[in-house]
């Protein structure tokens, strides 16, 4: 299995301890941290948005800053949507900003992930045309998750709060979608700040 993301003795000033792990293609793993601040910092470090004080982060064996922008995707806790864009524009934003795909290909990709995520076909059009202010909390979270999946980054960093406050029946569907994503040769890193019942192996 190819190494995708590697944390090597990574620590920031306010962290309890440094973290070292390697995330391989096909894996979905859970990084459990001590506090919300630590979780936010770890997400920023993994996304290359913040420099760590110690250690280094490698993407496919190279320093993260040398990687192609958009190689690491992000699934926000509460969707992280842009309020003046429709769901469709939000979902395609990182994909089209970083890679630029044909509309038909993107539509296919969105339709595929929507079916994996269990959305009925007759609901899709109105959902995609909605603006974030018209969506409920779960629908916003779903749009954020869909955006990450459609972007197809090498590594998808997921905030564990995504799974909080959603209907219990959605949890296995969404975790299944993330596993299906990883199974396509990518990796998923779920970052948590508390104990969770999610099924993935915790990074020690």
């Amino acid at each position: 299995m190819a190494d995708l993301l590697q944390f090597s003795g990574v620590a920031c000033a306010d962290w309890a301890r440094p973290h070292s792990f390697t995330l391989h293609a096909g894996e979905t793993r859970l990084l459990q941290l001590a506090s919300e601040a630590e979780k936010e910092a770890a997400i920023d470090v993994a996304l290359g948005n913040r420099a760590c004080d110690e250690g280094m982060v490698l993407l496919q064996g190279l320093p993260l800053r040398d990687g192609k922008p958009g190689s690491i995707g992000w699934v926000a806790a509460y969707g992280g949507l842009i309020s003046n864009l429709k769901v469709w524009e939000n979902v395609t934003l990182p994909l089209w900003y970083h890679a630029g795909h044909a509309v038909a290909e993107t539509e296919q990709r969105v339709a595929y992930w929507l079916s994996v995520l269990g959305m009925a076909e007759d609901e899709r059009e109105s959902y995609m045309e909605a603006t974030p202010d018209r969506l409920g909390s779960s629908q916003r979270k779903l749009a954020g998750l869909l955006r990450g999946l459609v972007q197809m980054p090498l590594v998808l960093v997921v905030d564990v709060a995504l799974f909080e406050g959603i209907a219990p029946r959605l949890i296995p569907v969404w975790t299944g979608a993330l596993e299906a994503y990883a199974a396509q040769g990518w990796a998923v890193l779920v970052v948590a700040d508390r104990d969770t019942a999610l099924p993935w192996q915790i990074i020690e």
Partner: protein
Amino acid sequence: MKNSLQRVQRRLGKRVLFVREGLALAWQAFRSLPAIARLPVRHNLFKQLYFGGIQSLGSASAIGVLFGLILVIQVYNLVGNNELLMLNVMIWVIVRELGPLLAAIVIIGRSSSAIASELAAMKVHGEIDSLQRMAISPAAYLVMPRILGMTFTSLALAFYFQVVAIGTGMAVTAWMLDVALRHEIAVFFETISFVEIASALLKSICFGVIVSAVSCHYGLAIKRAPTEIPKAASRAVMRSMLAVFACDVVITILLF
């Protein structure tokens, strides 16, 4: 005395910082120009052109017609039956000065507060952070299309405003002085100089860049409190206005 001096120093320091940060933002946006090849950035640009340009045409037309009328009536009262002087005054006032300035004021009224409050709301709601986490540069995705869009808008709107105001002025002059409109148009093109057209273009471009950069700067510079959003909008409007007038003075001194 010492306190007053320190206060003046502090205020001056803030002004210098404001100009420096505004210029830095405009430069950052300029460096992001290649990002215009990306579809979401182009969408953003088109939205700006539509909102700032197309939707402003109505107000620009109304102000242009009214302004052309006011000018002709005032000048006619002052100089009487003098066609050439009336045309010259129209060129001095509308092309050299008020065309770009009034177009900038329409843009400030319509777009400056809208841009500042939109960006400020995005900042308060963490959307700027979301963009950064998606490795999307706010300068490339938000600022550059706004600066580019507002600059095009300013240029096009100033030109449109001038055409409407001068057209109205010439039509009314032709009617009041009983001269042929075709003759007046010919005299107009003989009278207007390259420097006058160039100054109008230069002013429109500079005003567009200034208004958009100032508005974006105030929108993005706020702290994360909802009460800051209206403050950012009103600051953007007032500072844009001030900066536009200052720039107008500088260009006028340099060119005329």
